[in-house]
C-alpha cells in the first residue's frame, strides 16, 4: 500500500544531503515490501493462468464477510436440538457438517469433540495453525501465536484460566492437536435454562472460543439474577 504520509517527510526536512532527488522521490509512491512480494506473485501466477484476480477478490470477500464462527454456531445449535444430528456429528463430523453446506476447501477430516461434566476439550495446532475454517472462519491472532501453541499442551489449565474458564478439579482436560488432515471442533455443553429455545436463539449463545474449547457459551441470563424471567 502506498505510504500516504511521504509528503510530510519533505516538509520535515530530513537533511539527507541529496535535496532534489529526495524531493522528487517523495512525490512518488512506494510499496510496502510485503505488498511488493504478494503483487509479484499474483502477477506471475495470473500470467501463467494459475490464478484469476477476480476470483481471488471473490474468495477474499467470502472469507471476510460470509465464512466465520456463525457457521460453527449453527452446527452446535443443531446438535443441541436434534439428537440424531448429534449422533451423526459424533460418528462422522465431516459428513454431518457438510450436510449443512459448510464444506472445507482443503477436504480435511473434521472431528467433533464434546464437552461433558467430566471432560473439557481444547483445540490447538502446535506446528502451524491448522484450524477448522469451514465452521470457524479464519483463526484469531492468539490461536496463531507461539505462546498458545506451546503452552496449551504443557499447561492447559493455566491457559484456560487466562480465558476466564476454570473447570472444577475433577474435570479431565484434553488437548487435541490439529493437523493438515484432521481438524477438531468442540461442541460445548448446552447452557441450562434454555429449554424450549429455538435453534436460531441457541446459535446466538455459541461463541467462537467455546468451539475452540477456551470459552463457554454465553449465559442465557446475562443479569444472572436467577429470577426475573422475560
Amino acid at each position, binding site marked *: 500500500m502506498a505510504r500516504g504520509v511521504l509528503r510530510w517527510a519533505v516538509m520535515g526536512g530530513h537533511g539527507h544531503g541529496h535535496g532534489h532527488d529526495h524531493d522528487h522521490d517523495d512525490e512518488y509512491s512506494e510499496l510496502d515490501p510485503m505488498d511488493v512480494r504478494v503483487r509479484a506473485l499474483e502477477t506471475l501466477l495470473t500470467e501463467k493462468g494459475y490464478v484469476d484476480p477476480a476470483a481471488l477478490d471473490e474468495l477474499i470477500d467470502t472469507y471476510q464477510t460470509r465464512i466465520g464462527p456463525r457457521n460453527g454456531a449453527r452446527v452446535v445449535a443443531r446438535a443441541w436440538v436434534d439428537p440424531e444430528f448429534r449422533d451423526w456429528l459424533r460418528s462422522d463430523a465431516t459428513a454431518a457438517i457438510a450436510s449443512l453446506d459448510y464444506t472445507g476447501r482443503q477436504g480435511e477430516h473434521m472431528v467433533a469433540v464434546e464437552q461433558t461434566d467430566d471432560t473439557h476439550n481444547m483445540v490447538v495446532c502446535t506446528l502451524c495453525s491448522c484450524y477448522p475454517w469451514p465452521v470457524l472462519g479464519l483463526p484469531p491472532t*492468539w490461536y496463531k501465536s507461539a505462546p498458545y501453541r506451546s503452552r496449551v499442551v504443557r499447561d492447559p489449565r493455566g491457559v484456560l484460566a487466562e480465558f476466564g474458564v476454570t473447570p472444577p478439579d475433577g474435570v479431565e482436560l484434553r488437548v487435541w492437536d490439529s493437523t493438515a488432515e484432521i481438524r477438531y471442533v468442540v461442541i460445548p455443553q448446552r447452557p441450562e435454562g434454555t429449554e424450549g429455545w429455538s435453534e436460531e436463539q441457541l446459535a446466538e449463545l455459541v461463541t467462537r472460543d467455546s468451539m475452540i474449547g477456551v470459552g463457554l457459551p454465553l449465559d442465557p441470563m446475562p443479569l444472572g439474577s436467577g429470577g426475573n424471567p422475560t
Partner: protein
Amino acid sequence: MTAGAELRLPGQPLDDGELVFGEPWEAHAFAIAVRLHERGLFTWPQWATTLAEEITRAQAAGDPDTGSTYYHHWLAALERLVAETGAASTENQERTRQAWRRAAHRTPHGHPIELRADDFEQ
C-alpha cells in the same frame, strides 16, 4: 488476546470482534494459496508442512511468533512452494518484485500503481 470479552455485532465482517486480515496483502496471500491448492499445485499436507517449516525457521531467527507475523510466514511458504513446484522461479519472482518497485517509483501519489512492460527493463 481476546480472552473473555465476546462482542456481539451481528453482520459485521469480523471474527468475533477481530479483523480477519490485518492488511490487504495478507488477504491476497491467503487467497493465492487457497487457489493454488485448488488447482492442484500442492496438497494441503504439503502446504501445512512448508508453513510449519517457515514458522520454525522464523522463530529460530528471532521472530516473536505472537501471531501477528503469521502471514509473513504464510507468504514465505507460498513463495517457496511456487518456486519448488516450478510455477515461477525465485529469479522470476525477484524480477517481478523489481518491476513493481519501479512501477511504484514512477507513479505519482494518489494514483493507482499499475505494472507496465517497461517496468521489467533495466
